[in-house]
């Protein structure tokens, strides 16, 4: 009854209007399909092919703010693709990592993107118009590969999950780009870039996925020990509660609303 798109799909991202989808089918290429709002995969039409990476593409993110796609791969690179003249053109991003990239996410305001990498650092890149490229600032302090990143709705706080069993929240406040705001964790202007604000070791397994609630008041992360942990930041302090399940571990977690979570 159902047809397959490919033998394996590594990652995907929906376009802002949800009519197109960018998919990596376990290779170095990314295909953009249009008519992706049709429920049957046979109606999808391959529209564009993004060629640029040497090794498998591990994550794609499509920003609704400026319609740019960012892709990252095991070949230590990330490209930002812009749609001009009916073509997707890549632009260089200097990540400065010497290991593979595992996850990439645009900040909600579209000015920055963060990359989770095996080099145990998280480069946060912003655009430098002087040289027309994206340059990075590093968040260090991880003891092992970073598997996933998630931006707080205010685009200045970043949560990361890592194979060192911890979930951490960092400040990704870049002075020339961001304006300090009052967040649930305090005034963001207080922290300088790369400061670790809190960290949680509630998981006994590798942290595979992290997500913020739409309001930014809660954080959830899933671990390889089949646990899902929720952190509530309200009231100024962080309270972390974990649930263990008897099933196999979850790999990703997502908030549908402030009260509903899918994993």
């Amino acid at each position: 009854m159902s047809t397959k798109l490919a033998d394996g799909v590594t990652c995907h991202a929906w376009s802002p209007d949800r009519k197109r989808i960018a998919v990596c089918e376990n290779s170095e290429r990314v295909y953009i399909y249009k008519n992706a709002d049709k429920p049957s995969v046979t109606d999808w039409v391959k529209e564009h092919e993004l060629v640029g990476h040497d090794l498998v593409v591990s994550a794609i993110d499509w920003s609704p703010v400026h319609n740019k796609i960012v892709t990252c791969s095991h070949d230590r690179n990330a490209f930002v693709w812009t749609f001009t003249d009916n073509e997707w053109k890549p632009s260089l991003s200097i990540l400065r990592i010497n290991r593979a990239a595992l996850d990439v996410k645009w900040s909600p305001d579209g000015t920055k993107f963060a990359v989770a990498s095996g080099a145990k650092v998280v480069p946060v890149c912003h655009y430098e118009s002087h040289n027309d490229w994206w340059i990075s600032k590093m968040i260090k302090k991880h003891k092992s590969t970073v598997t996933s990143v998630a931006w707080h709705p205010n685009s200045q706080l970043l949560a990361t999950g890592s194979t060192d069993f911890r979930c951490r929240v960092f400040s990704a406040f870049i002075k020339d780009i961001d304006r300090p705001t009052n967040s649930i964790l305090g005034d963001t202007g207080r922290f300088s870039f790369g400061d670790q604000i809190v960290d949680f070791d509630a998981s006994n397994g590798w942290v595979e996925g992290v997500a913020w609630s739409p309001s930014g008041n809660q954080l959830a992360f899933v671990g390889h020990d089949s646990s899902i942990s929720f952190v509530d930041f309200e009231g100024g302090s962080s309270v972390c509660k974990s649930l263990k399940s008897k099933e196999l571990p979850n790999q990703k977690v997502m908030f549908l609303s402030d009260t509903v979570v899918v994993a």
Partner: protein
Amino acid sequence: SEFHLIALVFYQANTLRPYLNTVRHTLDASLCLRNFPSQTVERHNKPEVEVQSSKELLLNPVMICRNEQEKCLIESSINSVRVSIAIKQADEIESILCHKFTSFLMQRSEQFIVMRRKPAKGYDLSFLVTHMHLERMWKHKLIDFLIEFMEDIDKEISGMKIAINARARIIASEYVKQFCP
């Protein structure tokens, strides 16, 4: 991690099913693998259970024992699992048969895709399953294969031993016929 060293001792009579069920459930949990690029060498992708380069990427090994001789060691990591089995060898004939049979199989390990060319130390046969295998094969079918393999190998060796004894008896009686009419 959630795995600890387990030694399960059962009575001989009805131990096969519980033993295989335990192995099946442990494999089901261990085979949650993901594509994980090496964090020690750039652009490389290695089975972490074999290189053992980063301790945090390895899970605690689990040993499931049916009795003193027959056991199964499952070593797990973020992108690969090594399953080693020790086969029942009750007497010398079974020991020789087991040795010859496993070395026959291991020489042709490419045909079995997940078989390792050399067994782990202290065991007779080893399998190495990586995330790439799970991308191509169904996980439940792969586990079925491993469990059936463990069951069948005992039957094969017993079958061969019976065949040897039968053949020896036939040959001996033919030989003696020369001397006693």
